[in-house]
């Protein structure tokens, strides 16, 4: 069928059950359609998307020789695909189809029936006029790389890596810290099972490290992302460790001997010190130290130290190491950049940073952990065991001045702390909450258990943490001020230690990562999924997926499930070995193009290249998203978007106005 044949249009007006017909007079619309030029047949029917409805179209095409089809029904987002398939089935190019949305755009939004019908007629007429100008379009198959790149090596990234590798894909896992493990590596026990976080995670870390199909880049960052779905080219910057990973045996002697011992440990949330050459934690993977260049005497202070090099029996220290860059081709990218804990320093009335015994939840995890600053002993900074501990919920969360949202995990980890404190020290635990959120499997039961252990739950958001006391005996202790809304009494409880249950916010650098990958973020900075309910791991950037907290706060079970889902989606995308590009893309007329490059500047997807020999712009059809910026920018009308030619769009507009 060439486009030079006279159009023979079939128009189908759908009742859509009770959704269109009662409001819009569908028979009248069909009758009106019959009067339009080139319309060979116009029918109305109850459910066009049903099998009989589609068969009607197929039969008419075959028997009446239709070469164009218009369906006036619901939104193209619902059934454009369905009807295009019907055309395909009948042997017609699917782009000879146009849909008029008379449901969402007429029936559902117009009060008056007569008005709705007139509008439907206009929409149908516009579609009929447009479709007469449609051209047959072709999609292309583009081969894809059988590899997946994952940004972030926490539990989300690691799980996605393992699932992808299991399916036989080459995996690149890029982690910016010296070790994989993410936040979970810092936890002591996890709710509700009270599994030891390290015990359940280190096997995964080792699997990731040892898997032949997973290439691990630690202490590395994404430098550049180019390419398109199925064919991304990602440049990874491997920051220098100043330790040769091929030579280091992980003996740890360098760390013992390093004279710089007073650097604040990031892994221990500032509660202890580390050396300049260090591994973040004992179970670090890879078990190779890294030198903190800024604080190293040799590298950062211009002194001639080199003690680590002196003692290293494998001669693995390399002060001259430079950053290395490696570019890998990957078919899909999974973002698993995790989260950052909210800093409660901005909430003055909670006294964080002012009173030494006010801790954030992450700091407390480290205190409680056997590999932490106190080897897991729950003691205060003066070495004494606390007799009474307060846990403060919703710090910085559900708060319009800080983070409006609920971070979902804090109630559960707060109760976990209560249990662990009680178990370890027998201390009296007071938990101050607004609501208890325990929606997961066995979560409510965990709450019951902690209640039965005698934790004092007070339903009242803490108004103030202060060291002002009423009883001179309590000098040196902290006072928690809160209303117990259930007993309607204002409490001033003297405690020894306060734990602030802070929420989550996006990981630092998420903004830059989003820009590199073309993934947008919501008002709170979390990456936007394609559809909140039905497409939670995909992004509008095809080929880029999300896993874990970078998409929104969630606990470990949900993170792992989502990672597996993201890996599954990536695998589904790549499994056929090729992807179909879309047909409605830019087209640059060679004869009209003057080589001014305005279109290249306008393109947000870097989809237009320049042919130096012919001095014209050329569209990379696999990258082009059909946004039309080039068509608008082009001064010589050389660039246009297929399926959105001037004739098509103007024709449609004329009938609408």
């Amino acid at each position, binding site marked *: 069928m060439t486009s030079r044949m006279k159009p023979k249009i079939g128009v189908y007006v759908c009742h859509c059950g009770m959704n269109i017909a009662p409001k819009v007079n569908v028979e009248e619309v069909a009758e009106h359609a019959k009067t339009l030029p080139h319309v060979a047949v116009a029918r109305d029917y109850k459910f066009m998307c049903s099998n009989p409805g589609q068969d009607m179209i197929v039969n008419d095409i075959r028997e009446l020789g239709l070469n164009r089809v218009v369906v006036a029904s619901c939104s193209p987002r619902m059934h454009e695909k369905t009807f295009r398939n019907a055309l395909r089935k009948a042997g017609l190019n699917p782009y000879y189809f146009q849909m008029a949305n008379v449901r969402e755009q007429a029936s559902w939004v117009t009060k008056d029936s007569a008005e709705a019908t007139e509008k439907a007629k206009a929409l149908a007429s516009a579609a009929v006029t447009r479709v007469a100008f449609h051209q047959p379009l072709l999609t292309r198959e583009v081969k894809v790389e059988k590899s997946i790149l994952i940004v972030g090596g926490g539990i989300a990234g690691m799980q996605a890596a393992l699932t992808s590798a299991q399916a036989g894909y080459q995996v690149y896992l890029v982690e910016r810290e010296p070790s994989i493990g993410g936040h979970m590596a810092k936890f002591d026990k996890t709710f509700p099972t009270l599994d030891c976080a390290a015990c359940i995670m280190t096997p995964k870390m080792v699997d990731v490290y040892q898997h032949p199909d997973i290439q691990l880049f630690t202490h590395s960052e994404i430098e550049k992302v180019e390419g398109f779905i199925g064919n991304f080219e990602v440049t990874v910057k491997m920051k220098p460790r100043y330790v040769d990973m091929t030579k280091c045996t992980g003996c740890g002697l360098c760390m013992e001997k390093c004279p710089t011992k007073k650097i604040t440990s990031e892994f221990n949330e500032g509660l202890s010190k580390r050396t300049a050459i260090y591994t973040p934690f004992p179970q670090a993977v890879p078990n190779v130290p890294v030198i903190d260049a800024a604080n190293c005497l040799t590298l950062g202070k211009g002194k001639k130290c080199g003690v680590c090099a002196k003692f290293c029996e494998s001669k693995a220290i390399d002060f001259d190491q430079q950053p290395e860059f490696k570019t890998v081709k990957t078919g899909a990218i999974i973002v698993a950049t995790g989260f950052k804990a909210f800093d409660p320093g901005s909430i*003055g*009335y909670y006294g964080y940073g*002012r009173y030494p015994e006010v801790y954030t939840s992450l700091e407390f995890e480290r205190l409680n952990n056997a590999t932490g600053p106190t080897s897991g002993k729950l003691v205060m900074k003066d070495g004494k065991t606390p007799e009474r501990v307060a846990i403060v919920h919703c710090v910085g969360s559900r708060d319009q001045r800080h983070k409006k949202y609920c971070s979902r995990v804090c109630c559960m980890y707060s109760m976990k702390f209560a249990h662990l404190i009680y178990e370890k020290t027998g201390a009296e635990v007071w938990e101050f909450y607004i609501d208890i959120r325990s929606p997961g499997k066995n979560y409510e039961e965990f709450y019951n258990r902690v209640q039965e252990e005698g934790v004092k739950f007070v339903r009242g958001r803490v108004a103030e943490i*202060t*060291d*002002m*006391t*009423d009883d001179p005996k309590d*000098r040196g202790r902290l006072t928690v001020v809160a209303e117990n809304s259930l007993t309607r009494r204002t409490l001033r409880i003297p405690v020894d230690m306060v734990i602030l249950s802070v929420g989550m916010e996006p990981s630092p650098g998420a903004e830059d990562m989003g820009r590199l990958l073309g993934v947008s973020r919501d008002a709170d900075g979390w990456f936007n999924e394609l559809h909140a309910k039905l497409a939670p791991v995909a992004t509008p950037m095809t080929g880029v997926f999300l896993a874990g907290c970078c998409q929104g706060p969630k606990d470990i079970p949900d993170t792992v499930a989502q990672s597996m889902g993201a890996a599954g989606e990536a695998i589904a995308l790549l499994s056929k070995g090729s992807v179909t590009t879309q047909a409605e893309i830019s087209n640059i007329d060679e004869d009209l193009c003057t080589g001014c490059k305005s279109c290249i500047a306008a393109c947000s997807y870097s989809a237009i290249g320049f042919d130096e020999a012919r001095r014209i712009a050329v569209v990379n059809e696999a990258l082009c998203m059909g946004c039309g910026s080039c068509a608008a920018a082009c001064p010589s009308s050389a660039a246009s978007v297929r399926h959105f030619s001037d004739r098509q769009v103007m024709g449609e507009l004329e009938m609408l106005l």
Partner: protein
Amino acid sequence: MKICFYPGCSFASSAGYKESTDAVCRKLGIELSEIPDWNCCGATVSFGENTLRALVLSARHFVLAESMGFGQIVTGCNACYATLRKTADILAHDPDLFEQTKHVLSQFDLDLSALPKIRHLFEIISEAMPEITGDTFRDIPIAAYYGCQLTRPHQDLDRGDHPTVLETFLEKIGFGVTEHSAKTACCGASHAVVYTGDCRVLAQRILREMEGKGAKAVTTLCPLCQFNLDQNQSKDAGPSLPVTYFTQLAGLALGLSPKELGMNKLLVTAEKVLNRP
């Protein structure tokens, strides 16, 4: 420097606030142009009675200040500061109330148009005070008491919970500083007359905190704050801290005598602590 000054009802009768302000301003070359025939701003009472009336009570001074050629009004009382600011904010954002207020004021031949900036006396004095390098008072730890309505609800002068501008000022003028946690803890304010017992608990808690952290004296920037902390101390038990005004300490730093700073008016005397040759 000439500033438009609104004293408020409690200024003159307070424990030396007026004397010390006048003396310090003279020394610093600040001319206080008191708004002539000023009236009570309504403080924490008027808005709970009749909004329009409350707006008029404060806005009268906006007209008077404008006619004096000033674009800002300075006051030394936290309640006046908060009330004048609240009035200016409401009139700036509610055209209906602005018109109503304008109409009532016009019945008194007052034409409301511009809304001035409201500033606290502390801002003016702390900007004008020179740095004092001598050590005369440096070993006397002073607890700064901000009261409630200076840094709340508007937290632009300093944060609402643990502010630091008054401590910075004390260091600048050569006094010692006690860091403590009662800087903005409420003393019970105007409820102290009716609910003496409850407010005594509040004031005592504040004083105990200050004394417990090593303070030898207190400094305030509001007549009611000074009054409540001053009069809630008993000679027999509990803390005993002289409660001064920041302008009195500024005056001492500038070499003025306690007498001319009205320090004899303090209920808990400051002689033992602050008398330096």
